């Protein structure tokens, strides 16, 4: 699914990639907040355009566009549902404000997807794990996260091997009605699950053998340090938040309908 392409980390040397993941996350959360406090089209458009310089700086345009394409389907559904419900509730009338409202909500969804997409595209799982650790999340969770990311490609390969092995025994995964097809996956799922269990056992042995649990005060080879770029982004974030609250409270925002 192309929407997932927009969430996979891409290793590029860009100023955005070098930013502290915690700061980036705070930025994304503020975009999220701003997107929620407004409900008109114009602020959403503004937020959307705001992402573009980040995307260009991070040089992840292609992947970002791909996630846009992936989000397009869901966005269309949201639009259709909103237009549809207002159509039925207002007695089969399709008023322009209602349409504009639907557009705003759709744009809100797109803005949310896109800001998270930039976050994941520019933050390596390593840094994410490190950010979790340094945010005083219990180490077990950060470790579970990085280990999961570490083994996703391994499990994916294994799933393929298992499917091959069962196909070589005459299993035809595409044949049959829905029920049969679901049943066909049993010979693939069971070995996969058993293998995952066996793997966790071996991992646990290796962890114990390397002093897991020796002390509650774990140290770390790496440390996240805040640099100028991080402070700049923090300043921008605060600026956006303050400006948004001000506009929300004091500045009336015209609707497109109103402007036309």
């Amino acid at each position, binding site marked *: 699914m192309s929407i997932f392409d927009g969430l996979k980390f891409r290793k590029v040397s860009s100023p955005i990639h070098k930013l502290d993941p915690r700061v980036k996350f705070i930025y994304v959360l503020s975009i999220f907040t701003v997107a929620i406090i407004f409900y008109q089209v114009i602020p959403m458009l503004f937020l959307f355009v705001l992402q573009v310089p980040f995307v260009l700086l991070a040089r992840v345009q292609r992947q970002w566009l791909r996630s846009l394409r992936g989000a397009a389907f869901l966005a269309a559904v949201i639009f259709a549902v909103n237009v549809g419900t207002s159509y039925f509730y207002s007695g089969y009338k399709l008023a322009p404000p209602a349409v504009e409202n639907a557009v705003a909500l759709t744009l809100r969804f797109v803005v949310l997807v896109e800001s998270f997409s930039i976050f994941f595209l520019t933050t390596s799982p390593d840094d994410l794990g490190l950010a979790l650790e340094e945010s005083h999340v219990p180490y077990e969770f950060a470790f579970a996260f990085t280990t999961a990311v570490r083994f996703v490609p391994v499990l994916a390969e*294994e799933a393929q*091997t*298992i499917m*091959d*092995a*069962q*196909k*070589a*025994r*005459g*299993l*035809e995964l595409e044949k049959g009605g829905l029920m049969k097809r679901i049943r066909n996956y*049993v*010979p693939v799922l*069971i*070995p996969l699950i*058993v*293998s995952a269990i*066996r793997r966790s056992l071996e991992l646990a042995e290796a962890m114990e053998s390397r002093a897991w649990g020796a002390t509650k005060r774990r140290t770390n080879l790496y440390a996240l340090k805040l640099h100028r770029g991080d402070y700049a982004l923090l300043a921008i974030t605060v600026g956006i938040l303050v400006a948004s609250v001000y506009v929300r409270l004091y500045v009336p925002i015209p609707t497109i309908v109103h402007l036309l």
Partner: protein
Amino acid sequence: MIEAKDVHFSYANKVEALKGVSLTIKDGEFLAIMGQNGAGKSTFVKQFNGLLKPTLGTVLVDGVETTKTTVAALSRNVGFVFQNPDHQLFSETVEQEIAFALKNFGFASDVVEKRVTWALELLSLSQYRKTSPFLLSGGERKRVALASVLAWNPQMLILDEPTIGQDHEQKEKLTQFINQMQAQSKTVVIVTHDVEFVAECNPRVVLMKEGKIVAEGMGKDILTDSQVLAESSIVLPQIAQVFTELSPLGFPRNVIDIYEAEKIILNARESRRMP
């Protein structure tokens, strides 16, 4: 039985794993495909049962192009035993596990019953008929995987790295098993990097490197050609290593069998009338 003509294959990520491989395997042959990790051995061998189809070139199995048929249809005659039996085992009993493929291929239930019994006996697993495969030891699980492939009696057997994790005795049993299969005129292909094992069985050897076949011939010739081996990162079998050092004595180099080695040395001693 198998005819590969200038086979090229690239994975989805554009990596070209096979760069023009041509090979003919006759019915009843015993062949070892060797080479370093990443040379393309598994990729090549998966063309034989259609798990992978060539991006260029053709693979003919018993005269049928693999692109024109299904994995299931090809597997009827080409039995593939994967390296890790745990990638296949999923049933509640060994019996059901062995019956799985037979049912997939549409055998009648009385035939299934007979074949299961036959396969269990062949691999000394009869006492485990009603046991869960997950409760068996590593070696036993490997035998269950093997039995489940033999049960449908394919003409050709492909064994992917069958010697990994096996101790000496298990390897001897494997050699005996392969001999048994050969006696039944089955075609056997093993993918391996175990030089000593290949030296003992002395099959036809195909050596691959970076997606191409770089050498082909009888085991004793390929496995003793140090230049060929150095290029493909394979080591000489022990006996061949000894004889390479003995070249000042005028001994032949292409010796991999221990009994032949014994004869050569004792004869040399005789002819030089040594104490």
